[in-house]
């Protein structure tokens, strides 16, 4: 036991793992949000269609770029994808008026336009993670023009389940209007404590895990990186939160067809691009049933589901993900690139680029149907895409550098 305690003390003296360190450029900045482009590999992107990552509003984007060796973004770049990510930033007091339309319609539309323009492509593959997936599918249903394919990573679409968050927000006494009127932006502490209630004993379990694994530096680096991210939450813009609760949680608007964006109805049947829904068996934040159901509703004939073991975060950032989930996603996009253009999966990587070779063979995505869609035959000059001026993306305005310890159950 004593050696375990010494192990914990030793861990306390080690430097904290560096999170979100894959080099990126800021290609667009508007209000608090930014669009980052990860610096393409030296040989330039290998695929013609860029990938836009849409993270959740209430967690930082760097869960998809956690730390070297455990970074989805870094891995994608190494495979030759041209990767963009939205960093939603930290809302200020005035952003209590930022509504769902501002985010799911205007911001994502702008991010897609800028990403496509920068990449020299007509469309982009869109990946949404958790609430980011909900935003992405809403956007794709309303504005499908620039969405080459849609990948939904543990993205809730049906909100009437028996989970704690769904039950609580649907109680009569939960007055979301009063909450927004009083708090403005919904404080991250409130959201964090709600997520804590999903597994009230989780912090104890983590304490025991630390004692158990304190000798394992590699494990502890990953653990601390996730904890750093999990403790780095952001508040939810008030007006947007109100719509989220009233229209999605309470009215189940996407399933009932009653949800509207910028005044126009959102119908999931209008999503006709290839769709991949990824669900996780042990996801306590987004039960897989509420994420998988999207495939029953979208109008696409090229739709697939990938169901994996693991939880909401671990299954996305673990070492196992780099051998299963990540290659599956890359293959999904590469196949759609090839089938839509008939031209590229573009210029093969130069043989000198060590990052180019896939680390592992990609597992086949569990296919329900495969359809080659007619798309733009426009060839892309892949080498030209890497020409942006290199400046490492600084943390966005208002980002908290200070780490708050002790929290880790989180929604994304």
């Amino acid at each position, binding site marked *: 036991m004593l050696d375990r305690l010494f192990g914990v003390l030793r861990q306390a003296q080690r430097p904290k793992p560096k999170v979100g360190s894959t080099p990126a450029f800021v290609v667009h900045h508007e209000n608090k949000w930014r669009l980052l482009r990860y610096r393409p590999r030296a040989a330039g992107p290998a695929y013609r269609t860029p990938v836009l990552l849409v993270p959740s509003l209430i967690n930082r984007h760097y869960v998809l770029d956690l730390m070297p060796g455990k970074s989805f973004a870094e891995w994608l770049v190494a495979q030759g994808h041209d990767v963009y990510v939205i960093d939603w930033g930290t809302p200020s007091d005035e952003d209590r008026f930022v509504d769902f339309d501002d985010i799911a319609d205007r911001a994502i539309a702008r991010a897609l336009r800028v990403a496509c323009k920068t990449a020299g492509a007509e469309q982009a593959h869109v990946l949404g993670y958790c609430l980011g997936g909900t935003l992405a599918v809403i956007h794709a249903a309303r504005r499908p023009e620039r969405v080459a394919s849609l990948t939904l990573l543990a993205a809730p679409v049906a909100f009437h389940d028996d989970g704690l968050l769904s039950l609580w927000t649907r109680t009569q006494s*939960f007055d979301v209007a009063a909450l927004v009127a009083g708090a403005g932006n919904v404080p991250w502490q409130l959201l964090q404590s709600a997520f804590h209630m999903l597994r009230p*004993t989780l912090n104890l379990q983590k304490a025991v895990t630390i004692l158990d694994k304190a000798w394992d530096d590699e494990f502890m680096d990953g653990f601390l990186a996730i904890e750093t991210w999990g403790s780095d939450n952001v508040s939810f813009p008030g007006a947007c939160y109100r719509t989220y609760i009233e229209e999605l949680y309470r009215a189940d608007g996407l399933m009932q067809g009653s949800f509207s964006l910028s005044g126009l109805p959102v119908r999931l049947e209008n999503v006709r691009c290839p769709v991949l829904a990824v669900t996780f068996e042990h996801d306590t934040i987004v039960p897989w049933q509420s994420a998988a159901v999207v495939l029953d509703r979208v109008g696409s004939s090229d739709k697939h589901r990938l169901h994996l073991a693991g939880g909401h975060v671990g299954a996305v950032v673990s070492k196992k993900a780099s051998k299963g989930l990540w290659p599956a996603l890359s293959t999904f996009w590469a196949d759609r690139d090839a089938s839509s253009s008939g031209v590229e999966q573009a210029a093969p990587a130069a043989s000198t680029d060590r990052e180019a070779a896939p680390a592992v063979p990609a597992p086949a995505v569990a296919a329900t149907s495969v359809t080659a869609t007619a798309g733009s035959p426009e060839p892309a000059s892949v080498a030209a895409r890497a020409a942006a001026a290199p400046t490492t993306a600084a943390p966005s305005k208002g980002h908290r550098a200070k780490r708050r310890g002790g929290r880790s159950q989180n929604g994304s």
Partner: protein
Amino acid sequence: MFGWDLTKQYFNAWENQTAKYLEHWLKSPLLLEPAGAALSAAMKSKAAADKAAADFWGTLGLPTKRDQERTLHALNQLQSRLLDLEERLADKQP
């Protein structure tokens, strides 16, 4: 080592059972309804206090915090519309 493994096993069993029990209890309307009511009441009080403060500043002819927030938000919206226009202009250029 054996002692630690055994302790961990007991802990895991306890944690699993306790979590299940707590999760079940936390989902009970007997807890959720009062929790929602308490949160709503606290927020209504805060909104009332904010309004009282705003009224006070208003009587002095000064802009309230909410006024400033609205103005800043309007500026952000304007910036967004300008970016829209810039994009359209750029698209029209040959």
